[in-house]
């Protein structure tokens, strides 16, 4: 019966162009990039064979563990922040605002689609120390404190990046998790409430377990995005002060384009890809075990 839809020529015509573009612009360059890890130089200076030099440099480079650690730290902190704040907002939407919350949901979602560069520049000015005193420092001064140069110390710079990333994505995770919470049957909640379950007990024993699948997919999505984060950090701190907020993505970019070393740049990109793969595999194995038990 399906044979009428099995025409090979049609498959080639419909799928061919997309597959060709995708292979030429994404798959081939990916393999090509693997090849670059054995060379040094750039398209301007020309390439020379380097053997395993890039990999031994990877092990000795003191900046690499720093960037790797920042990538992991950033991904963990931002993922936790995004999902926790998003979940709290989703609880607020479901139990407090209920159907009336459409305007609030829509407003809080708006920063999600704003260009990262615009948001980063806004936060830069919002936290500015000098010459203009931004609202945050103005508020600190109004309460008798003294203004802080937020981008001068690693800890503070990281804090501003974290606040910005949570500010601009909390609405997204809130809507995602809200949809998950809506799927919990009302009767189940009412039954538990009638049986005398308190608020926290209700959240712990019914709401959280039943929204676990959507929580896990939010976590996966968030960690995948934060490991690859580039725009927000590049635009907000430029990796500074010094290289204190430089993740692998930015380190790769600087190595390749500021120092013109495509070989080592590709080696860093490979490190990042391996990291993403490991994390994905780790999460998938973890969640499979969860569903196996449940």
């Amino acid at each position: 019966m399906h044979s009428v839809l099995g025409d090979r020529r049609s498959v080639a015509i419909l799928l061919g162009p997309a597959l060709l573009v995708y292979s030429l612009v994404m798959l081939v360059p990916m393999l090509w990039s693997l090849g670059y890890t054995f060379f040094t130089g750039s398209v301007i200076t020309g390439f020379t064979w380097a053997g395993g030099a890039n990999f031994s440099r990877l092990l000795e480079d003191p900046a690499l563990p720093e960037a790797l650690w920042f990538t992991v730290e950033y991904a963990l902190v931002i993922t936790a922040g995004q999902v926790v704040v998003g979940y709290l907002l989703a609880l607020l939407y479901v139990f407090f605002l209920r159907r009336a919350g459409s305007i609030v949901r829509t407003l809080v979602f708006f920063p999600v689609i704003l260009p990262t560069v615009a948001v980063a520049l806004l936060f830069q000015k919002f936290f500015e120390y000098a010459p203009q005193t931004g609202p945050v420092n103005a508020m600190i001064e109004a309460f008798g404190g003294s203004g802080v140069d937020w981008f001068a110390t690693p800890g503070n710079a990281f804090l501003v990046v974290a606040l910005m990333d949570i500010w601009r994505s909390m609405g997204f995770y809130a809507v995602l998790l809200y949809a998950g919470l809506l799927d919990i049957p009302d009767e189940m909640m009412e039954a538990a409430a009638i049986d005398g379950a308190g608020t926290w007990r209700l959240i712990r024993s019914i709401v959280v377990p039943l929204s676990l699948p959507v929580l896990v997919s939010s976590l996966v999505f968030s960690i995948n995005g934060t490991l690859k984060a580039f725009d927000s950090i590049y635009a907000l701190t430029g990796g500074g002060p010094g290289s204190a907020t430089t993740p692998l993505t930015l380190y790769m970019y600087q190595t390749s384009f500021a120092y013109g070393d495509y070989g080592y740049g590709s080696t860093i990109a490979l490190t990042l890809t391996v990291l993403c793969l490991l994390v994905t595999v780790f999460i998938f194995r973890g969640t499979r075990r969860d569903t196996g038990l449940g």
Partner: protein
Amino acid sequence: MTMAILTDRPATSRHTAPAPKPRRNHARTLRRLPGYLCVALLLVVVTYPLLWLFLGSFKTQDEFLNGSTTALPDSFTNFGNYSQAWSSVATYLQNSLLTVVPALALIIVLGTAAGFALEVLVWKGRQTTLLLFLAGIMIPGQMILLPLFTVYFELHLTGTLWPLVITYTATGLPLTVFMMATYFRAVPKQVFEAATMDGASIIRSFVSIGFPMMRNAILTIALVQFFFLWNDLLIALTFTTDDAQRTVQVGLLNFTGRFGVVEYGPTFAAICINVLLILAIYVFLNQRVMRGLAAGAVKG
């Protein structure tokens, strides 16, 4: 808080009953007060930075450096900042449109056709091909930048907008193909089988049945992809070598340092133009945007 609301449920349904006791109403408002405070705080946190940005776009340099940062601008008709910003932002906007629109059209046409071929048509290896596309969602952009830069350089495409159009098209395909395949999965195959038996070629039944049928899904995906491409920084930053090809995001980033001293007014106006454009789309299509992005996340 949650408990209070839950026990409220019978109370709200009783609202139809005549004259609820006033004291009970007071107690209810009081119990809900922390919730209202949370919502108010949330709205301030979300809207104040944007409001502050908008107010700033009307301020003069002097107001920025010597006035209070939370003060209202002296004049709301000071459009000088906007006209100064527009002189360079106009080119950036044009570049963004010239790259995003063709790339978006290509993504939709190629992606929908591929989704159709992978889900509706029956052939060996379609699962593997779908997985191959899926891999593209995971690959970090950094992995493909350097070889592409080399190729574009050798082909003398650097200095034109072509590298952006090509790269955008390719990076948008994986998610589009995957989402379209999911949407086509919901359509009964008999629809296309019947059309084919009636003598339409498969290509024809895609063009006149499959594609129009997906109008809604296509609009949603186009919207999602539009935001991805429009807001992109990494690819635009890598493949634009001089000011003439800068997209909005790259241009905005370089806008700040242009005259040595930060010119606050024009910078704020430029950021504002960028934000207002997105707002204009969001005002009309917010529900679709929210649904589309959430669907993209769950499926991706």
